[in-house]
C-alpha cells in the first residue's frame, strides 16, 4: 500500500501548496481566498438557496468581494463549487468578459483542486484538508503559446493529442500542472489509463463504478 498512499499523499500536498502560492494571474493570497470560498460554498446560504431553486438565476443577490478577490471572482468560485451542473455558456461568457478568460479558467482550476483535495480528506477522515498560510510572490501573468478555440468556453491547447478534458486548463499552466498531478496520481496514472485491466487494489470496473456514481450525483454530462 505504501507506494499508492505515498503517491497520493505527495500530490495532495503539492496541490494544497499550489492553492496558497502565486499562480498564473492570481497571487497566493487571492488563490487561498478563492479556495476558502470554494469550501464555503458547501454550506453558504445563498448557494444553498440557488441549489434548491428551479434555476440558480431565480434567486436574487450575489457574493461580495473578499479581500482583493473581486466579487465576480468570488461568484465564479461559488458557482463552480456549489452548482457546476447548471452552469451555462451565457453565465460563463459574462464572467469571462469581466475577469478575462485566463483568470476565469484559473478560478475554475482552484475550485476543482479544492473540491478534490477536500473530498479526499473528507472521504477518508471526515474533515477538510489543511491549507497553509498564503505564500508571497507574483503570478506569472503569461498566456501560453499554442492555445485557441477548440470548441470549449475558454481557449485550450491545440495539437496535444489529448482528450478535451485533459487540456481543459491548459490556458493556465501553473494551475494546470497541479491539476494534472492530481489526476495522474488519483486516477489515470499515465499510459496505464488506456489499459482496461488495472492491477490495482480495485479493478478497472470497480474504479469506474465509483466514478459513474460520482458524476451522476453531480449531474455531469461529460
Amino acid at each position: 500500500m505504501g507506494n499508492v498512499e505515498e503517491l497520493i499523499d505527495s500530490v495532495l500536498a503539492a496541490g494544497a501548496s499550489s492553492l496558497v502560492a502565486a499562480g498564473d494571474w492570481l497571487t497566493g493570497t487571492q488563490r487561498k481566498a478563492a479556495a476558502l470560498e470554494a469550501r464555503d460554498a458547501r454550506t453558504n446560504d445563498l448557494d444553498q438557496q440557488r441549489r434548491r431553486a428551479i434555476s440558480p438565476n431565480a434567486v436574487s443577490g450575489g457574493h461580495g468581494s473578499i479581500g482583493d478577490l473581486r466579487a465576480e471572482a468570488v461568484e465564479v468560485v461559488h458557482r463552480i463549487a456549489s452548482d457546476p451542473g447548471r452552469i451555462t455558456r451565457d453565465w460563463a461568457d459574462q464572467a469571462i468578459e469581466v475577469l478575462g478568460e485566463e483568470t476565469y479558467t484559473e478560478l475554475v482550476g482552484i475550485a476543482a483542486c479544492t473540491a478534490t483535495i477536500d473530498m479526499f480528506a473528507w472521504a477518508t477522515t471526515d474533515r477538510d484538508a489543511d491549507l497553509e498560510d498564503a505564500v508571497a510572490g507574483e503570478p506569472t501573468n503569461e498566456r501560453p503559446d499554442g492555445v485557441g478555440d477548440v470548441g470549449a468556453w475558454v481557449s485550450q491547447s491545440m495539437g496535444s493529442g489529448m482528450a478535451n478534458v485533459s487540456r481543459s486548463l491548459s490556458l493556465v499552466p501553473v494551475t494546470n500542472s497541479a491539476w494534472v498531478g492530481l489526476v495522474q496520481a488519483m486516477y489515470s496514472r499515465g499510459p496505464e489509463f488506456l489499459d482496461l485491466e488495472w492491477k490495482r487494489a480495485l479493478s478497472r470496473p470497480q474504479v469506474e463504478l465509483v466514478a459513474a456514481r460520482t458524476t451522476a450525483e453531480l449531474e455531469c454530462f461529460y
Partner: protein
Amino acid sequence: MLLSVSGEKAGLVVDLEVATDAAKTGDAGVPHGAELLAFATAANRRSDDLAQARATLEAVVGSEGLLEAAATVAIFNGLVRVADGTGIQLDPSMLTSTVATRAALGIDLFKGAASTIGAPTEPRQDVNGVQGLFA
C-alpha cells in the same frame, strides 16, 4: 462508457441504472459494487452514514482499495467542475458511441449537454486525434 467497456472486458454484465441512480439498490454487476456505491454516495453527500460505509467497504476491499475508492470520488469531484466550468465538448468518438446509453439514463437532459448537443459548433477533437487522457 469506461464502466461498460471495462466491465465487458472483465466478463461482467454491468447495470448502468444501478450504477448511476442512488435510489436503486444492488451491486450493478460489479464485485463489491454495493459497498463501493454506498461509499461513493455517502462521501459525495457527506452524509452521516459515511463512517459506516467506509468501514464496510474497507472490510471487503482492504485499506488500499478504500484509498483508491476515495481517490476516485475525490478526483471526479474535480473533473466534473473542470468539465462543466470550461464548457468542454464531449469528444466526437465518445459522443457517437454513447448515444443509446445517454438516452437510456437521461444524461442528455443534464444542463452540461448543451456544450455538446445543439452547440453552435460541432464537437471537435485534437488534430492529432485523442491519444490518451493525461498520459
